[in-house]
Structures are given as C-alpha cells and as structure tokens.
C-alpha cells in the first residue's frame, strides 16, 4: 500500500494530450517539417534485410526536386508516355472528385469523399503494381479504380445507388467493389482490410501463385488493433504484401499526433515488426511509384512485406459531412511543404519538354468534360432519393448464398406491406 505520506515529496504528474500546431485562424508555418533534398535517400536492394532500414523509415524518399527534375537512385526513369498516363489518371481522379462532391452538394447523393492532394498515393502505386495484384483499399484510393480503367459510370452508378449500381444500392457511396479489377470490397470499418490483405497474400504464396496484395489505411487507422495483427502476420509468414499508410496528417478532426506521430514516424512502426519500412514523399508521384515497384519486387521474390508511409496532406474535408474550418487552419494546404502532386508531375513533364501548360489545360478540360458527360449518362439510371432504383426484394438477397426461410418470410411480409399500403414502390 502506498500512503499519501509516502508520495508527499514526489513531483505532480501531468497528462500530455497532443495538440496540433495550428487551429482555425492561426498563421501556418511548416518550416519545422524536415524535408530532405530529393535524391538523397539510399535505395537498398529489394532483398535486403529489414534491419538496415532505420534511416529510410525516419527519412523521406523523394525523387522530384524543387525544380521538377527527377534525381537520385529512386528515379524510376519512366518514359514520357507513361508519365503522361500517370498525370492524366491523377487529373481524372481530381476531376471526378470535384464533380461528385458537387453532386452531393446538389442533393443527388448522400455522401462523398474526395482524395484531393493524395492522388499520387493511389494512382502511382496502382501503376507500379501488376493489374492482377489484389488491392485492399480504404475509402480514399479511388485513383486505383481510375488507373485500372474501371468505368467512371460504374463508380457514379454506385455513388447514386441507382439502377445501374452493381452493388444494388446496398453500400454507402464510394464503398466500391470490383473483383475483376483487383479492387477488394470497401468496408466502413477501419483497417479491417489490413489482415485480410495479408491473408490474401499468404494464400497466394501458399498456392505458389505469383500475385501479390497491397493494402492502404490512413495514419489515424494505424491505431486500430487490426494494424498490429496484420503487421505481425505479415512479418511472421513473410507475406507478399505491401502495407501502405497514407499519412495525410488528419483523421477527421484529429491530427496525426493522436495516432502517435509526435513520437515517431509511421514507417518506423515497421522496424519493430521486422518489416522493411520506407517513408516516402506522398506528393511525389515518382517516389510513390518507385517505392511501390521496389516493394512489389521484394514481395514477388519472396523477400517479404514492406510498409510504406506516404507523407502527404488531406487537402479537403474528411468527407461531405465534415467542415475542416472547425478544427484546422485554412492555410495549411497552401503552405504544405510537399506541394501538390498533380502540379509537381506536370512541372516535371514540362521540364522534360514533354508537356506544356496548353496541353495541361486541354487535358483538364477533357477530363472535366468526360466526367460531366458520364455523369449525365449515370443520372439516366437515377439519382438517390428519386424513387427506388432496385427491386425491393433484392434487399434480402446475398445475405446468404441461399435465402433461408426466415428471410423469405420477411421478404414476403415486406411485399405484402407495400401492396396493402397502396403505395407500391416505383421500382419496376
């Protein structure tokens, strides 16, 4: 027993509760964020032992320098055609986000989430993977679908929960699923996809396949227990998986300090698990591409998993239900030291003499036009709230492979209710 008299001479404890540096109205100064010069990070061999990755887990892999030149050992040396495809995928992701955000504001759907400022993290990574590698994304990697040429109209049909929605209106907008395109069904529950990706990768290895898995979560979600279990499994079985942490500084209103960022980096988590850890400039599409390609090669050669922290910034609100002016300074995005991934790739291409502002403007217009035209097509399939777009019987389908008696009974009850009410849904 410890009596009060024994504690009398001890200093009073205090609880540390993290606080972001800037709140609404504050001037922003990010000069304390260490931004190593592009091209300075070492590029290990993909088969190197993970115990030598300390400086990579605390550093920052960067390829594009301040003048837009690709420099250093991590330069993936992509040809201009490939770079232009990357730029267009990112521009298309941004155009799509803009349009769908507006569609939500116009009441055409219930919900949307943009990925503005984080386009490189999904687009460049997807371009570095093989098309049949399985992605286990969170809700902010729509760039993967766009990179894999998933039809925009299918995305919109899902967002509108309309009669073209192949998820039959069962899922909240943006919770896409496309097995064919290696895009695992998105769940609202955070980080659950992490151990699932590891399991998929373990299965691929156990079957002697050559495909690998990649998964994404935000830095906030690394605090979930599933992150720990996934890292443990990935390490124990040397699963061919890439564990991406998109550190965009914000988990809704909570800054990254509430996930542990004040004390360490997220890439450094890898060290304790014995996983190769890379910390990458997430707004540098070439760095994201190169790191993913490196991790993919490591996985494909049975050298095990890689954890990549993509250091970036969530430029917009968390979702259409969020107003970031309530918790952070509006200047943060414009002051962000790593800039805008789209602009950085554009400047790089212009620097190569393979692009110009006119072509950029034309491409942006082409993306916006295509999105608008596709939106009109999608809206022909209906928008949320304007009638019921699915046969209401479908609500009971797919709970199980075969519908059990109790669901058949509830289905029949609902049909009878509707008929008796004299207001049958206009689904037919």
């Amino acid at each position, binding site marked *: 027993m410890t009596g009060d008299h024994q504690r009398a001479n001890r200093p009073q404890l205090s609880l540390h509760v993290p606080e972001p540096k800037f709140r609404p109205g504050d001037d922003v100064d990010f000069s304390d964020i260490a931004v190593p010069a592009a091209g300075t990070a070492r590029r290990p061999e993909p088969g190197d032992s993970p115990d030598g990755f300390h400086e990579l887990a605390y550093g920052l892999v960067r390829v594009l320098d301040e003048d837009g030149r690709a420099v250093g050992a991590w330069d993936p040396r992509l040809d201009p055609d490939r770079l232009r495809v990357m730029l267009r995928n990112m521009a298309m992701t941004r155009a799509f986000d803009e349009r769908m955000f507006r569609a939500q504001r116009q009441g055409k759907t219930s919900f949307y989430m943009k990925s503005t400022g984080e386009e490189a993290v999904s687009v460049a990574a997807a371009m570095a993977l093989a098309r049949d590698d*399985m992605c*286990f994304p969170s809700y902010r990697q729509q760039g993967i679908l766009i990179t894999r040429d998933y039809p925009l109209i299918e995305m919109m049909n899902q967002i509108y929960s309309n009669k073209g929605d*192949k*998820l*039959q209106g*069962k*899922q909240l907008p943006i*919770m896409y*699923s*496309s*097995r064919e395109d290696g895009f*695992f*069904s998105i*769940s*609202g*529950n955070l980080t*659950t996809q*992490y*151990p*699932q*990706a*590891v*399991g*998929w*990768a*373990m*299965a*691929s*290895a*156990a*079957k002697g396949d050559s495909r690998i*898995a990649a998964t994404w979560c935000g830095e906030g979600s690394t605090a979930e*227990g*599933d992150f*720990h*279990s*996934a890292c*443990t*499994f990935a390490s*124990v079985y040397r699963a061919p998986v890439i564990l991406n942490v998109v550190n965009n500084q914000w988990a809704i209103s909570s800054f990254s300090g509430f996930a542990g960022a004040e004390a360490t980096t997220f890439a450094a988590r890898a060290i304790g698990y014995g996983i190769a850890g890379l910390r990458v400039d997430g707004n540098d599409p070439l760095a994201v591409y190169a790191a993913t390609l490196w991790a993919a090669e490591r996985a494909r050669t049975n050298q095990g998993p890689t954890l990549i922290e993509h250091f970036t910034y969530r430029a917009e609100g968390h979702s259409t239900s969020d107003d970031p002016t309530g918790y952070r300074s509006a200047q943060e995005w414009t002051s962000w030291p790593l800039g805008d991934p789209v602009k950085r790739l554009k400047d790089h291409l212009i620097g190569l003499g393979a692009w110009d502002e006119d072509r950029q403007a034309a491409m942006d217009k082409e993306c916006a036009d295509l999105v608008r035209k596709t939106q009109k097509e999608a809206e022909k399939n209906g928008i949320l709230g304007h009638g019921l777009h699915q046969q209401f019987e479908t609500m009971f389908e*797919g*709970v*199980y*492979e075969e519908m*059990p*008696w*109790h669901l058949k009974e509830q289905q029949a009850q609902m049909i009878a209710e509707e008929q008796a009410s004299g207001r049958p849904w206009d689904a037919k």
Partner: protein
Amino acid sequence: MNMIQAVNSAMDVMMGRDENVVVMGEDVGYFGGVFRATAGLQKKYGKTRVFDTPITECGIIGVAIGMGAYGLRPVPEIQFADYIYPALDQLVSEAARLRYRSAGEFIAPLTVRSPFGGGIFGGQTHSQSPESIFTHVSGLKTVIPATPYDAKGLLISCIEDNDPVIFFEPKRIYNGPFDGHWDRPAKNWSNHPGGEVPTGYYRIPLGKASVVREGDAVTILCYGTMVHVVADSVADAGINAEIIDLRTLVPLDIDTIVESVKKTGRCMIVHEATRTQGFGSELSATVQERCFYHLEAPILRVTGFDTPYPHSLEWAYFPGPVRIGQALKEIMKDA
C-alpha cells in the same frame, strides 16, 4: 470415435477432398491443438495447409477472410469461445457482410471452430456460451453438434458451405456424453450410438434439427451438452417429452419445432448460456408467435443465470438435472 476424433476426421476428410481447405489457429499445427482436434493434420497435409498462428484472434479471422477472398476454404480455430471477442469486428463487420456488401463478388466461406460451454470447472473464461452474439448477426450461420456423429457430418457441411459458419464444439462432451450428474463416473462415447462415426465422407445438412426422443407431453428445445442433460432428466422424471436437438441455430429448423409444439402443446427451452437475450428468447418468441393457440402452458426457459460463469459454484450455475427436473414439474403441473 469421440467428438475430438470426429472433428479431426471431418477436417482430415475435407483436406483430402479439397486442396483449398486450410486449418489455422493457435497451437493447431505441430502440436495438434490444445484439445488434440487437429492432431496429425500438419504432418499429413504440410505446413502451408495446417499452420500455427500468432495469438491474435482478430488477425486469425481477418487473415482467414482474406484467404477466403483469394479462393481458399479456411477452417480457423479460436482456442476457446471465451476468446472469440477480439475477432468480433472481423466476424460481424466483415465475414458476415462480405457477400452482401459486394453483391456476391467476394465471399467468406469460413468455418470458425471453437470449443464452448461449461461443466469443466473452466471458470469465467473457459466456459462461456456466446452463441446468441452470433445468431443475432445476419450473414452468419451458427452450428452446435451434440454427438460425434453429428459433429463430423455437420462440420463437413460447414466446410463445404459458402457462407461463414460459427461451429461451437461443446467441450464438456468431447470425450463422452454428459448427463449433468457431475458426481457420477464419466462416460465415454463407445457405448453411445452417437459415437459410431464412419471414417469416410458424409454430411448432415445445416438447418435441420434432430428429434432425439419422440414424445407427446412437452417439446424440449436444446443443443450441445444440454441434449444429454435433458435426456437424462426426462428419463428420471418419467415424462413422455419430445426432445429436439436443434443442431443448427441459424438457419433454424422451424418446421420441426412448430410441428412438435403443436403436437405437445408445451415448450421448454434449455441452454447453458445466460438467460437475458440468450438464444432461448428468440426460440420462445418464435414458438409463441407460431404456436400460440396450441400452447397449454407458458413457455419455460431453463438456462444459465445472468452472471459471469463462476468457478467454485459451477454446479449451482449449470442448468443440470435438478433445475431441469423442477422445470419439468412446473410445465406439466396442469397436464
């Protein structure tokens, strides 16, 4: 066979028939499981099909879901049902909903095996019966065998089923049927017809109950260990009860239940799990709705008490012959 051997045989048969069946869990590999349920499987099928896992239940189920999405047919083990809670998010939010939320693009054909139930002085964390947590989740099936024969046939059906199944094994009857008389010598399965188990492939369909004793005085709905406790209590009381072993809780064999209660006019429900919002509540409500005009007495629930499972007071907690005998008198008093 005893129930452990039957469970082992079911996995052996299915691993032999389907190369996508994999067995995983804490201590299931080299060691063969803390209850020996997976003994010999790793040696026979290799480490990539039968493997030990880290001690992380959410990881075991999460990884199994990913393996299922790849195309495997995982049979993960949770060492005790009392330790399934860390995996609840993966089971409830993911496995149960994967088919629905992806409109059938991805499925979770898992069979989660887990020893459950009390009567072994397991105390608070080796005795629980959490089945009603899972029966409440749409998208999951819940199966509980009461004999070695059923355990093997049901487990094979579960492994072949394309929906996620929770397969609770009553560990009190792993080695022999238990009638609730803890002070009598233990029995083994060799003298019980349910212990006769074919070595090869056979299946018992999910969603079908078993009428283990026909009668016309009262219908008793039960499952797992309680099937044997009820049978003994009914014999002692000399009441012509109809005893139904539900075997599958979801989807429930409603026809067998309703037909029986309409015949007997009385219904008693027996389970080890705590009473409030236990599966008995669902059974009682369902019977009341469908057999109301045939009921000659209130439906009775004989269950564990609404307390954590105690260690030293186990036989006061366990719904044994005394409590069931009293309930039988109560439900038959106006007959």
